């Protein structure tokens, strides 16, 4: 029977060996991973001559893997032996692994020599990674051999423990499995990889890039959180085990934040960390993958995750569109109700006039009906302009003509209200390329608003056009009317909002905004209660190249 101390010693040994197996996989996977990748690229990158050696390296790596799985399998007898005599066990381990390990190291160093002249940077750097992984591996094995000595507090040569800790940081890499070389998923995503281990990041990046995704990397949790502030990613691959801020904490930050909450997260973790994985899933992680990562599984899960996100985004868009549609219908109904009042009124008065045989009264009633027919037309036109996603119908026009056209529509109304319309034009704007109907509509709405703002005391509405730079011009409509306060300015462009009481459809400005947007322009408002208002449109003189529906070069008539 073993003593308490001895049993404790056994347990710590067991733990050590279990951990060792786990940790040895890291360099092995790096050896296998990089050599496989180099072999895959060998044809396309012109190092066919190195293929035989690369294959030997790969073979060595695979042998090492098989041996480790076998020798360090806790269910096997070999492990039981370790309990008795760790030193002997260590020696046996080292012996078994020596041959394949030598093969790996040997051929790697040979290839490094051969490419010293040729100097293909990428190739060499991958070779060097294989080389350092092999050395790490060796170091770890030495640790087993010296385990009892370590336990006793002696440190046989600084290297071993140093390497141990560097191994701890070393990557759990992807263990390559058969995969198609020419993968291009339709719709690759914008992915963020968060892992503190450089090799891990590197291999994951390369695999995913090959699969058609765009990759960004973060070295730690803090960096990841910084990056998502400035860029929105389709998906995050998050390592759990990281120093300072672990994956769970990063996930917490994401879920606490409204903007980031919906970024899908796939957790990457080592086999023994199931608890952490469960916690992360409860926190809202989409999925998890265990290291060593299987590329085929990786591809499938990332694909599925991205697809889910796209569906969610699409559904949300639909919802927003439906809500807007609902708003539009309600607003429309409201406008129509008001118009109906005009029709009903006209009808009532006409009928009354018929009864009373009063022609004058009948005329009044009938003109009410006519006015509202006009209003319905305007409403329908505004609605159609607003809801349709259209491309402007460009043509070369003289801006001054458009201004005159708008003025004509409103002259009568202006006269009735005692308002003067002044125009100031710029000779340089005789040739611009615009959607003439759209711009006339904008002007009619803006000038009309100006007139309404003045209507109580008469006033002046000015329309000024001026060149702003080589590519842009400005169109400003000002009035000397009542002006607007801050609260009104805030809601000014809201659909169906009107300062004109029941007389306004509330669509005039949204329509203007829409047309300006279609032209890739901008609009600004300045107003002060009691001091009038100015709307300024800033528009490109010609549309950006490629925007003309007939494909013509937009730079017509350039001076």
């Amino acid at each position: 029977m073993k003593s308490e101390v001895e049993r404790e010693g056994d347990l710590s040994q067991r733990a050590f060996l279990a951990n060792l197996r786990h940790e040895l996989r890291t360099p092995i996977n790096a050896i296998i991973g990089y050599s496989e990748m180099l072999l895959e690229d060998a044809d396309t990158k012109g190092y066919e001559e190195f293929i035989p050696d690369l294959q030997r390296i790969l073979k060595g790596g695979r042998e090492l893997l098989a041996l480790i799985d076998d020798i360090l399998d806790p269910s096997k007898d070999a492990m039981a032996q370790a309990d008795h005599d760790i030193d002997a066990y260590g020696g046996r381990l080292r012996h078994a692994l020596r041959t394949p390990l030598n093969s790996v190291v040997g051929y790697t160093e040979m290839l490094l020599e051969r490419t010293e002249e040729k100097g293909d940077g990428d190739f060499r750097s991958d070779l060097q990674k294989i080389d350092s992984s092999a050395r790490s591996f060796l170091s770890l094995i030495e640790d087993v051999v010296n385990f009892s000595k370590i336990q006793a507090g002696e440190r046989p040569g600084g290297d071993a423990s140093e390497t141990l800790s560097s191994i701890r940081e070393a990557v759990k890499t992807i263990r390559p499995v058969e995969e198609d070389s020419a993968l291009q998923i339709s719709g690759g995503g914008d992915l963020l990889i968060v892992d503190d281990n450089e090799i891990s990041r590197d291999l994951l990046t390369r695999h995913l890039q090959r699969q058609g995704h765009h990759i960004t990397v973060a070295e730690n949790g803090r960096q990841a959180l910084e990056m998502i502030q400035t860029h929105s990613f389709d998906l995050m691959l998050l390592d759990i085990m990281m120093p300072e801020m672990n994956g769970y904490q990063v996930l917490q930050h994401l879920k606490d934040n409204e903007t980031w909450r919906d970024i899908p997260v796939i957790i990457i973790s080592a086999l023994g960390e199931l608890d952490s994985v469960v916690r992360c899933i409860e926190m809202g992680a989409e999925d998890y993958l265990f290291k060593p990562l299987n590329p085929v599984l990786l591809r499938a899960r990332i694909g599925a995750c991205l697809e889910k996100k796209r569906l969610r985004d699409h559904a949300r868009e639909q919802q927003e569109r439906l809500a807007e549609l609902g708003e539009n219908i309600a607003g429309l109904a409201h406008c129509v109700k008001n118009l109906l009042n005009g029709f009903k009124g006209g009808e009532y008065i006409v009928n009354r006039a018929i009864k009373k045989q009063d022609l004058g009264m009948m005329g009044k009633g009938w003109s009410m009906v006519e006015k509202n027919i006009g209003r319905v037309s305007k409403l329908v036109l505004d609605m159609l302009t607003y809801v349709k996603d259209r491309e402007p119908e460009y043509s070369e026009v003289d801006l001054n003509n458009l201004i005159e056209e708008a003025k004509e529509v409103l002259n009568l109304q202006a006269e009735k209200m005692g308002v003067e319309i002044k125009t100031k034009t710029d000779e340089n704007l005789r040739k611009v390329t615009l959607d003439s109907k759209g711009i006339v509509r904008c002007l009619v709405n803006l000038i009309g608003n100006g007139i309404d703002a003045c209507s109580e005391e008469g006033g002046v509405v000015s329309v000024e056009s001026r060149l702003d730079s080589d590519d842009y011009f400005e169109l400003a409509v000002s009035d000397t009317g009542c002006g607007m306060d801050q609260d009104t300015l805030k809601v000014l462009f809201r659909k169906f909002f009107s300062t004109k009481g029941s007389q306004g459809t509330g669509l005039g400005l949204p329509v203007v905004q829409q047309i300006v947007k279609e032209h890739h322009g901008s609009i600004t408002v300045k107003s002060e209660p009691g001091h009038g208002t100015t709307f300024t449109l800033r528009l490109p003189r010609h549309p950006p190249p490629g925007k003309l529906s007939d494909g013509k070069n937009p730079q017509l008539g350039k001076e």
Partner: protein
Amino acid sequence: MGDLKDRLVLVVDDDPDVIEYVSAILDDHQMKTMSASNGKEAMKKVRETKPDIILLDLMMPKQSGLGFFNELKKNEKYKAIPVIVVSGASKMTGVDVKSYIYDKEKELSERKQKVVGTDAKPEAYVEKPVDPEKLIAAIQKFLP
């Protein structure tokens, strides 16, 4: 319930067509009408000749309808005059007109403008488009 004949109605609405329409209805019932197209004008008319009942549109520019209503209810002489709101909307998409206006008034009262009558309410709401029968029924109900 009251007798309509020769009773005076003040119609306040920024739309002249509405005034035309409503006046025609009232005329058909032998009522007398005077009109105003904004709150200021309405107050002026009330001071000139006290009406028996007021038909008020709330959706007028610069919220003059509500301003008028509040001023009316503050005034000892006039606060008893029944007011029927004839409104184009009880709810405007995206912006609830009533709440928008009330919020504005509340804001004003917080700036130490006395708005007595935040408790005062109109007698009734008649929605546009105006139905002549509904309008008359409401007037008859609240006419003192």
